[in-house]
């Protein structure tokens, strides 16, 4: 969501101040493998120390605060490792934390409201989660090694299989699919499935789904507006 009350983040700001302003940024620190406690240090200092691209940090942090990239930022191939680090760790967060958390809530929901619809919601979610896992695996095993190799040609290509070649179209289709099923779930929970003793747990699920949606939106914005443009420039150079 667009929030003007949040800061527009700049390199000379203290990391702890950013977190006080918007605690969701703790996830950004986690994904970039930065320490939780940074004392009085600024973004610039911490990034330099940990070999993290400051411009990538700032762009992602601003996305968390609701500011989309203007297109004027300048990124280079040197930013690729930071971006991939962020995205890979975010995958881990989805797969091992966020999705299981929502899954547990849906089980809780079924305990309170054992209707056939909720049973089907569980099934819907499992199938959806499997699709998401497939996409994440595709990125981890095919797309990211491919991007990394563009940055550092001496890097090994990973376990690339013959029939799994990276394609930017496929990449985009996956994203819109993942987001649209999440919308389906929210629509069903808020407009269609009757409430039966499940108001509190339904609130938790709904907020979890919205958080996840917001985070996935940041995730695909990073890929599509920061990472892909760098990659296509590198591809042009090679051709």
């Amino acid at each position, binding site marked *: 969501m667009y929030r003007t009350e949040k800061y527009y983040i700049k390199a000379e700001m203290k990391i702890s101040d950013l977190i006080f302003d918007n605690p969701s940024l703790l996830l950004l620190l986690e994904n970039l493998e930065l320490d939780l406690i940074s004392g009085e240090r600024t973004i610039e200092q911490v990034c330099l120390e940990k070999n993290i691209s400051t411009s990538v940090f700032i762009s992602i942090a601003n996305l968390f605060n609701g500011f989309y990239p203007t297109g004027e930022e300048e990124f280079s191939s040197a930013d690729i490792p930071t971006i991939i680090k962020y995205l890979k760790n975010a995958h881990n967060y989805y797969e091992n934390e966020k999705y299981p958390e929502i899954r547990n809530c849906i089980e809780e929901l079924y305990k309170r409201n054992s209707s*056939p*619809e909720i049973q089907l919601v569980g099934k819907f979610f499992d*199938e959806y989660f499997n699709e998401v896992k497939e996409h994440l695996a595709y990125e981890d095993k095919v797309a990211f090694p491919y991007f990394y190799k563009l940055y550092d040609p001496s890097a090994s290509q990973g376990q690339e299989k013959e029939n799994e070649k990276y394609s930017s179209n496929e990449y985009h289709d996956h994203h819109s699919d993942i987001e649209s099923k999440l919308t389906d*779930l929210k629509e069903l929970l808020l407009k269609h499935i009757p409430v039966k003793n499940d108001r509190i747990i339904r609130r938790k699920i709904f907020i979890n789904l919205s958080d996840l949606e917001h985070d996935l939106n940041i995730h695909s914005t990073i890929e599509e507006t920061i990472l892909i443009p760098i990659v296509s420039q590198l591809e042009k150079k090679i051709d």
Partner: protein
Amino acid sequence: MTKSLINIAILEPSQIITEGLSNILLKTGTYSKIFKIDSLNEFNTKLFGSQIDIAIINPNQIQNKLKEFSLLKKSLSDTLWAGLVYTFFDQHLLSQFDRIINITDSPESIGELIHKIKNSDYHSSNGSEIEQLSEREIEVLKLLIKGLPNKEIGDKLNISIHTVISHRKNISQKTGIKSQAGLTIYAISNKIVQIEDYLN
């Protein structure tokens, strides 16, 4: 489906006024995205990537560009053009706008402007306030959730594949749900089909 996001562009040289206006707009509680722009030309660029619903412009910015402005209005016919007035302007100049916002207007009246936009969109895209499926759409939905492809649905109902696709589009728009699995749950919740057919 209601259109929830409103895109607003502000063309106003004073940063203080732009920021103040943005704040008021964001506080109306509508999910809006605000673009700050520096010249009329920017409306023509693909910069926004999406349609601008409301353009708020300082009339000074169109003073010597009336022709350009009227062309712009023609090419972006769905946009509402509002003049932001805090000094004296010629009546003719102000008549170019669909609506005038005065600097002394209350935040509430600006909020009303946004809500009006939102509702007019809502009505034009749906025709009615109640998002009920038509009988035909319900027939299509029943076959759809059985997993039949468009062609077979068309054959069963004696309609063309294009009609099937257009019904499907309307179903998703009215329910807000796109996937087949999601529509199945919708149909059960709304007692359009029996649950027994779909479990296990």
